[in-house]
């Protein structure tokens, strides 16, 4: 029987948080689009629209509350994530970024350098996604409490909310393309967040070479299947 080595990359808490966030994010984008594009709002009618707006707020609560609960449950995990996100870039990180765009269009020809636990591009994209999520959450809370703020504040916050929405829409689409493994070299990546959180030895070596070597050498999170 062939034994394949796997590395446990994500905990159940991380996967649960990501899962809830994915569902909430999709629901928020769809319900937000209805208000963002007047033609859709007018087509569905005011009764349905009110229901969609209430739904938008329910999912917004999940979008904000679940990561906060996860942070409280695992402050060390959050600190680790932040440390990774702001880790200094080495030569391989810089080279990765230089090659990333050509690689997206010619994965057969371009070989990417080894990466640490979080790829440099991942750090950049995730950082922007986290920032946009923070902005959209804060501005959303202010809009919800709109009757207590002046029209000027309301208008400015609305712009922040809309810009963050556009940012999340664009970054989220790219994130899903890679994360869900639609891009050929990333096939199987969905298991990391929507499966058991394990990555095979070969996938880990391909995507996060430096990290995989360290993990395989230590054996701490390595499991056999």
């Amino acid at each position: 029987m062939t034994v394949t080595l796997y590395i446990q990359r994500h905990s159940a808490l991380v996967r649960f948080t990501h899962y809830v966030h994915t569902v909430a994010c999709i629901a928020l984008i769809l319900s937000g689009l209805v208000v963002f594009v007047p033609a859709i709002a007018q087509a569905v009618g005011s009764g349905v629209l009110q229901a969609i707006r209430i739904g938008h707020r329910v999912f917004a609560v999940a979008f904000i509350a679940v990561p906060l609960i996860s942070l409280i449950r695992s402050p060390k995990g959050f600190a680790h994530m932040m440390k990774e996100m702001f880790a200094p870039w080495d030569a391989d990180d810089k080279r990765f970024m230089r090659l990333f765009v050509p690689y997206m269009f010619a994965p057969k020809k371009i070989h990417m350098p080894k990466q640490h636990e979080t790829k440099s591009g991942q750090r950049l994209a995730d950082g922007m996604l986290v920032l946009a999520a923070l902005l959209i959450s804060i501005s959303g809370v202010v809009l919800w409490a709109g009757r207590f703020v002046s029209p000027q504040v309301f208008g400015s916050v609305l712009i922040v909310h809309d810009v963050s929405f556009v940012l999340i829409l664009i970054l989220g689409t790219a994130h899903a393309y890679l994360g869900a493994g639609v891009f050929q070299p990333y096939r199987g990546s969905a298991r990391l967040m929507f499966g058991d959180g394990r990555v095979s030895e070969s996938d880990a070596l391909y995507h996060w070479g430096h990290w995989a070597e360290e993990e395989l050498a230590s054996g701490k999170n390595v499991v056999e299947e």
Partner: protein
Amino acid sequence: MTESAILYDSSKCSACKGCQVQCKQWNMMPSSLAKDKYEYTGSYQSMADLNGDTRLLIEFREKDTEKGIEWAFSRRACFHCTEPACMEVCPVGAISKLADGTVRLDSTKCIGCKYCTAACPFGVPKYRPNFGVSNKCTQCDDRVAKGLKPACVKTCPAAAMAYGPRDEMLAAGKARVEELKTAGFSKAELYGETEMGGMHSLFVAKYGYEAHGLIRNPKRSDIASLFELAKPLAGIGVAAVLGGLGLSFLTGIGYKRDEPTVESVSAHDAAKEEE
């Protein structure tokens, strides 16, 4: 259909607030002032600004002069702009422009998003919390449809308000301004002829725009302009990303990458070092 307008003459207004009361009565808006709830502020003005239950407010601006106290009264309500920023940003089409120029807010369609309040340069539409909708003057379009005058105009005992074809109201307003100037009120001006594309609520400002709290050269609020910009930009951004990712997907079709192992990676690293 001929465009109509209300003409308010601040020089005739006695600030009796009859229009305020009549507006509330006709439109079934409750008073937002509870008895003895508010402290006297030193002004005879009812409340600081329009609110969800108040579509029309007579404002009092007081000035100490040699002759004693002088008041500059103002009728604060929707101006019914020809280019209404509120209508442009309304996501549900609850705000529409009628053939006579009235800017109408349909509360059965309104979802209470408050975008109109943020976009209006005058901050006129106000949120009505109990109903979850925005509220503003509709120039009594229901009365007008039956051949009646707006409730505020009908009730004004000082004849400070008139309603009729816009060109006639404009002519009357201009003539009144000339009269006031002749009488020594050199700053008298007519507001609403060209502002925001031309308004359907004109204002004879006896002491000039500023004295009556009117915005000179009002402009669409930045939010309305940004809204117009944000939507096509979002569309272009998303289309570009989807196009780019689609192309990326197509170039990857048929490619199956290597399955590296620790050994193959070490061998590769060694070969690279030798190079």
